[in-house]
């Protein structure tokens, strides 16, 4: 009879210690996971590997550039004319990074063409930036000519009505690496990044981001 309270206390103490141990283990496992994840991301930062979403839903990308001024750039378009982001001050701009070898980019291009037509009157423009020359050296004239020809053909086939700029990789660092394509940034009329998108989503998703950039 005298041992019963003692045994009960021991059980409670044991259970409490078990709980604490579980919490400690969960905390350690979480910390260890975050540490490994940080190391992997750091190791892969220069390689730009895909990070598929663990769930089936569309991963929502949050750019560190959101809310900040879109980095300035000036690139040459398909006709050889220099085009800068500053030329579009006061307009909402979708900066769409793509490449001809990118299948998802090809799928979303007709959507973008359609949305550009729909919102152009409200002060919306698209700048399509080709990142074709990712592995080309600056002095590789043949390679650049081939890349430009491919971009030109792509733009013609897709009937792209907006400026297509070349050598997107020269500004990739300012725009967060651009390792995965397509990548788009939606810049508002004040020049601030209102939204971003990495990977193929949907026409509706792109439209909602355009409207956000337009301030609707």
């Amino acid at each position: 009879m005298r041992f019963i309270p003692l045994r009960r206390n021991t059980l409670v103490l044991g259970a409490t210690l078990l709980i604490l141990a579980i919490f400690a283990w969960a905390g350690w496992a979480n910390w260890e996971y975050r540490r490994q994840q940080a190391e992997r991301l750091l190791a892969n930062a220069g390689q730009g590997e895909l990070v598929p979403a663990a769930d089936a839903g569309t991963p929502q990308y949050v750019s560190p550039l959101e809310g900040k001024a879109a980095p300035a750039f000036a690139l040459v378009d398909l006709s050889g004319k220099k085009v800068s982001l500053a030329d579009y001050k006061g307009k909402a701009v979708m900066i769409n990074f793509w490449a001809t070898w990118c299948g998802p980019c090809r799928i979303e291009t007709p959507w973008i063409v359609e949305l550009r037509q729909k919102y152009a009157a409200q002060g919306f423009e698209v700048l399509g930036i080709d990142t074709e020359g990712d592995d080309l050296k600056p002095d590789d004239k043949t390679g650049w000519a081939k890349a430009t020809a491919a971009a030109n053909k792509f733009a013609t086939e897709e009937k792209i009505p907006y400026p297509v700029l070349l050598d997107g990789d020269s500004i990739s660092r300012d725009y967060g690496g651009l390792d995965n394509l397509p990548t788009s940034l939606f810049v508002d009329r004040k020049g601030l990044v209102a939204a971003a998108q990495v990977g193929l989503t949907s026409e509706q998703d792109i439209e909602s981001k355009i409207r956000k950039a337009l301030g609707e």
Partner: protein
Amino acid sequence: MKNQVWIAIAMLSLGALATHGQSAQKRPLVKADSVTFLFPEQVTVSAGKPSQVELRFRVAPGLHINSHTPMDEFLIPTVFSIPEGSGARLESATYPAGIVIALPVDPTTKLSVYTGEFIIEARIVATAGNHRVQGQLHYQACDNNECLPPKTLNVTMDVIGK
């Protein structure tokens, strides 16, 4: 009172496990390489004669790379090569047929791709002696929503010509 204590303990335990389980469920899969060269690390061939070597590669889960004969002219084919000066040369390479897939968002567009493991049958000619051959696999990987820039994977193997 006794029951309440046990219920509280059980709930706290479940809470702790659920918290950890949730973070594990959201864990993204970060891949070091889209394509990995599996083997062989070493092959012995008849010196001066073309010899068939099966090169086995693996595409990371969730990704695909274009086959050697993609269905669109803009897509980058998978190509194996051996640069000159390696002590061995590639006479020819036979590539597996690609698997035909379509992206969920656009079922009409067909793609010829490699997923999982695939084998390239390379016919290699090596001179007599031991050679550290550094072949190259040029490929371009995507998943259903995104693409990565084209890459070149080093395919290193010791070729012994006898």
